[in-house]
């Protein structure tokens, strides 16, 4: 299908290009290890004083850190660079070129850039959570892995939709970087399971910056905590947010083209 071919071509070319810069891999590796060390040291500090954090034990929290790192890597590799590019494109007028191409504009703006080396975080994150799950005495069965992947996918799609919506807002409010940065900071809350936060904050972290779906839910899937309600909610919100963000994107385009909206 045309759409898939286009997406794949962009991905392939970006990756091939990035492969030339092997030094970036080393730097990325170092940065990722440090970030991970940060997370693990934080956990160590917490468990110096307690045995469990609201029912989550050390290895279980390590799973959360693993998922957090993994998703972070996916966002920084696939989503974030493209969303920043949309904002730049609106400001500089280079978005016009995208709009004169015979392909879906949302697709084009979402796949232009791919930061290959950020996938190191995906690798590290996966390694960490596999380690933690094994330490918990569990084995990773196919069903469990599948469930995990499904919930992770939902979380990823929800985050993508959110980022796209924020980028779309730049059609109206050009200086939107601060909003991006705010979301990034809010995302930090994902290092810890959202259950520990007070009700009002938990709601914000579920529906405003969907950390709950992106990090906690997949972690729950791996630690046998996932409730059917959460799964259904994740699926529903994923479908809903994809639809909503696409609609919003179309509205944004109409505004950009000066159609009387």
């Amino acid at each position, binding site marked *: 299908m*045309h759409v898939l071919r286009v997406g794949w*071509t962009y991905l392939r*070319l*970006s990756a091939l290009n990035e492969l030339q810069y092997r030094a970036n891999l080393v730097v990325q590796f170092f940065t990722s290890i440090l970030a991970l060390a940060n997370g693990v040291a934080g956990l160590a500090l917490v468990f110096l004083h307690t045995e469990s954090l609201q029912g989550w034990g050390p290895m279980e929290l390590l799973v959360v850190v693993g998922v957090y790192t993994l998703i972070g890597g996916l966002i920084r590799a696939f989503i974030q660079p493209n969303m920043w590019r949309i904002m730049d494109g609106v400001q*500089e007028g*280079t978005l016009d*070129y995208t*709009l004169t191409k*015979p392909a879906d504009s949302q697709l084009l703006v979402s796949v232009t850039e791919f930061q290959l080396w950020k996938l190191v975080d995906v690798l590290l994150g996966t390694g960490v959570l596999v380690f933690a799950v094994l330490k918990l005495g569990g084995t990773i069965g196919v069903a469990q892995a599948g469930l995990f992947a499904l919930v992770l996918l939902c979380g990823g799609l929800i985050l993508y939709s959110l980022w796209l919506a924020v980028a779309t807002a730049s059609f109206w409010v050009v200086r939107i970087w601060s909003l991006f940065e705010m979301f990034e900071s809010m995302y930090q809350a994902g290092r810890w399971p959202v259950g520990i936060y007070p009700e009002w904050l938990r709601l914000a972290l579920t529906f405003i910056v969907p950390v709950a779906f992106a990090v906690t839910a997949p972690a729950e899937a791996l630690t046998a905590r996932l409730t059917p309600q959460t799964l259904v909610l994740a699926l529903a919100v994923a479908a809903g947010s994809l639809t909503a963000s696409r609609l919003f994107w179309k509205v944004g385009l109409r505004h950009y083209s000066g159609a009387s909206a």
Partner: protein
Amino acid sequence: MELAIEVKELSKTYRVSERSAGLVAALKGLVRRQKKDVRAVRSINFQVEPGEVVGFLGPNGAGKTTTLKMLSGLLYPTGGEARVLGHLPHKRENDYLRQITLVTGQRNQLVWDIPAIDSYELFKAVYDLEPQAFKRTMDEFVELLELQELIKKPVRNLSLGERMKVEIAGALMHRPRVLFLDEPTLGLDVTMQRRIRRFFTEYNQREGATVLLTSHYMADVVALCKRVIVIHHGRILFDGDLSALVQKFTTHKRLQVKPEDLTADLSSYGEVVAKDSGSVSLRVPREQVPRVTARLLAEVPIIDLSVEDPPIEDVIETVFAGGDDEADA
């Protein structure tokens, strides 16, 4: 033969918020924004046959870019209708977009960090080009524009002129039937401008493509277009042959005189516009040219004399000045 471009009563009006200076106005602006209508394009009409190369002339803010954007589907018209290749551009049908291209000077569409040849691969995927045809086109353009070495380097490592060459090649890779060129030679040196003009001419002749070009540089228009449309304040002031334009709007002519005596004062014959080593340029009203020429030849010892049309820029300015009077109609 079906028209390539058909424009009927096309209009575009923008709503802009007006804000005057001062604290009071700013505060008032918080509560109620003053809006003003800017009529960028006012009910213009024109038709373009396939294969024509048409130049859009007009000062900044005249409505040229707005018109181009409406024709390429980037802007919704406020009124009237435009049809390009039988399609309504603002619908942005894929079938339509596959046949057009937009080139804007100084704004790049090639991906910055990768070699141009990779970006061309992307275009191949996006435009769904057949591999053989794609290769043929690329080879042809590489030869025409001398891109052999350039396409392998990352775009950011190229100079401005080189970048423009690879950009243009990329923009035409899908062999579009209609080209919208918005100031394509902006900022380039003279040699490069000529190079690029030659390329567009080649392409137009080989493919029979329709070209709509806006430019500041008269040289672009003179070199490429037989037909010009002059736009000012959103209205078409002139639509026709470039030579006809000069004819119609020339109120004065230039007399290039080479007198024997260089210190001679020729101001009684006409307005002295320029004087350099060897010749004097006189600006003389058209009707008076035969009489002034006769007088000069009779009264002043002259080595050489020629009658010329004024520089096209002057003509255009006259056209614009005329347009200014109609502006607020």
